[in-house]
């Protein structure tokens, strides 16, 4: 029965399997990054993100309250309290008073300290430290606990990365810098390309075919080829390094594809509609604004998504045309590269920073995905 239109191919299972594989391939790192960005350093170092939902055994060093809080009563001096922060549901299994033997005692046991005092630690972290003499010292007694900690998620990473004004490695500034680059670098080429595409699709003028051929030719020119001459040009005409230069560069590099995509879409619009508008008395500009632009929305949206995504993720153009020695105009990609160097071990910071930078593309992608597909298919499927 294979080969008959309408019957399911026997390879459907292969399609489904590869689809599942692709979905997993995409989901695994994304979800991992997302979950990691809500975990603490300790949690990340004790187990992978897939263990985030189950309790984990963690060994930590905690301190009792300082001796200043001791209460003297009947010749006995007491310090009471809980080792954990308020609201913690961790459960202590074993503990110790020396870093060399952190599992000497079980929960509920009493340990004798060097200075003659005793300390009893309960499973929930409650402790009583008592001594017949006045306890001295500035800091509290160290207690090494191994506790079963229930899953815990924290927004501290985001607070640190986004809202801590003293954090010079924060992403907030870089985030807005990236937006400042991306939004004009998306809008300008679309505006220019839409006009060009209409002219190339529907207006008769000598040399039109040559222009189209030139646009197609420019599609395959590597971006790197133009970096140095362009930067030189920018410096000579006084733009230098800055947002304007980055916008111009992104516009230039995006235009060939934009014009090509939009022209292909517009040329597929029915000729009758445009001719009818001409008979109705519309000028070329009115046809463009009132007929072509609304009808080309899927193609415009699809190119906008592309241009947005790759200017958002761009590092090369930003490094060459934007970021100067002051570092005031650094973008997120550059910031993450730097974090990799300075904070290579702090996975929670890296994960959070990375997720901040992919959050916007994710939102854009999910909100606009139907246009992405529709615009891509433009001109290829009739």
């Amino acid at each position, binding site marked *: 029965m294979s080969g008959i239109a309408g019957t399911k191919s026997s390879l459907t299972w292969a399609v489904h399997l590869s689809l599942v594989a692709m979905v997993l391939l995409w989901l695994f790192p994304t979800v991992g990054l997302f979950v990691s960005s809500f975990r603490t350093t300790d949690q990340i170092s004790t187990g992978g993100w897939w263990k985030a939902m189950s309790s984990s055994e963690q060994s930590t060093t905690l301190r009792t309250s300082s001796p200043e809080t001791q209460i003297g009563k009947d010749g006995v001096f007491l310090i009471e309290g809980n080792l954990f922060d308020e609201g913690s549901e961790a459960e202590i299994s074993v503990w110790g008073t020396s870093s060399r033997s952190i599992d000497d005692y079980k929960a509920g046991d009493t340990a004798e300290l060097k200075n003659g005092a005793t300390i009893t630690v309960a499973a929930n972290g409650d402790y009583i430290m008592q001594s017949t003499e006045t306890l001295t010292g500035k800091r509290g007694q160290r207690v090494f606990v191994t506790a079963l900690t229930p899953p815990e998620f924290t927004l501290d990473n985001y607070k640190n990365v986004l809202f801590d004004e003293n954090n010079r490695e924060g992403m907030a500034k870089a985030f807005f810098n990236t937006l400042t680059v991306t939004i004009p670098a998306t809008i300008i080429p679309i505006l220019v390309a839409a006009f060009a595409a209409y002219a190339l699709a529907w207006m008769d003028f000598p040399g039109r075919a040559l222009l189209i051929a030139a646009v197609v030719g420019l599609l395959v020119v590597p971006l790197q080829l133009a970096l140095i001459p362009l930067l030189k040009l920018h410096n000579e005409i006084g733009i230098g390094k800055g947002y304007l230069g980055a916008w111009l560069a992104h516009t230039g590099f995006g235009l060939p594809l934009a014009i090509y995509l939009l022209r292909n879409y517009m040329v597929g619009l*029915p000729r*009758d*509609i445009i*001719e*009818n*508008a*001409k*008979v*109705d*008395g*519309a000028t070329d500009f*009115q046809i463009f604004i*009132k*007929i072509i632009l*609304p*009808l080309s929305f899927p193609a415009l949206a699809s190119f906008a998504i592309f241009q947005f995504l790759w200017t958002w993720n761009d590092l090369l153009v930003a490094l060459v045309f934007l970021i100067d020695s002051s570092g005031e105009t650094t973008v997120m990609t550059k910031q993450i590269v730097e974090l990799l160097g300075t904070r290579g071990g702090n996975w929670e910071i890296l994960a959070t920073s990375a997720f901040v930078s992919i959050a916007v593309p994710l939102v854009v992608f999910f909100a606009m995905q139907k246009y992405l597909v529709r615009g891509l298919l433009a001109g290829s499927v009739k």
Partner: protein
Amino acid sequence: MTNLKLTDVAKTYSGNIDVLNNINLDIKTGELIVFVGPSGCGKSTLLRMIAGLETISDGEFTIDGERMNEMPPAQRGIAMVFQSYALYPHMTVRDNMSFALKLAKKTPEEIDTAITKVANTLQLTEYLDRLPKALSGGQRQRVAIGRSIVRDPKVYLFDEPLSNLDAALRVATRIEIAQLKESMPESTMVYVTHDQVEAMTLASRIVVLANKGIAQVGTPLELYETPENEFVAQFIGSPAMNLLPGKIVETGETTQVSLTHGAGVIASAVPTAADLKGANVNVGIRPEDLLPTTGENFAFESKIEISEALGEVTQVYFKRQSPDSAPVIAKLLGIHRNVRNTSMRMSAEADKVHLFADGQSLHYR
């Protein structure tokens, strides 16, 4: 008054591909002119030249004496209905109809009045706020027509407006267009079709286009009764007119022609001059004019190869007279059973017999 005049109009593509040559046509106010012709004869091109969507390569086109060759479409006072309707898909019916009026800077009140009036006439009132994709084919067609009416143009151009409709709707819409024309006696319409039923029923005059030029212009019945040439004779009427080769044996008020195949001699009411005696001609007889006869005065006698009983008529196909000729067809009134493989002697009345020499009708000599 709206006179369209085409003088020696020609259309050439890329300098050397002739599409139309020597088109001379005078269209008067209130006429409904239909362009017909086989596909590729340039009828749509001619219409688009009138509309201003194609440039006129040579000659002159005037409306009311004013040269239109270089005038942009919008300023020619025309409205056009396209085969594909060409509705703006992103606009409601109301916006579609008001588009041209808004461009012409009419006031909202004027636009509203015009649209309400036209929507009432075409029964579109309840669809005004719908998008074209929510309309049926017939409704879209009415919107396209309505959109041209609201502009109140001097000339309406229709480019095969019914060819995307199904058969029943086509008949209904054809009648609507005929009524529309009647309600607007002052407006001039030019209508392109390849359907000769539309042409015959709608036209006040038909222009038959063939071989890059005009084959004949005339009222539908003129074309049917006195075609100027073999092309028009065969193009108008269905099935096409039979052409039988023969030789003139007697000239005068009526002409006697002896047919090459079938040994018959038939009289034609077409008068001929004496010098035509012995000339080779084609005798044209429409299938519906061929009558079975038993007398001695007949055109030919031949064997029936195929018969098609349609009820009201029976179409019979005679054996081909030579391998490369078309079969002769006769349309016999009523039902004729078991005529296949029988031989039949056919004749026609003298005034229904056309004579063509070198493709041209002797009627106009």
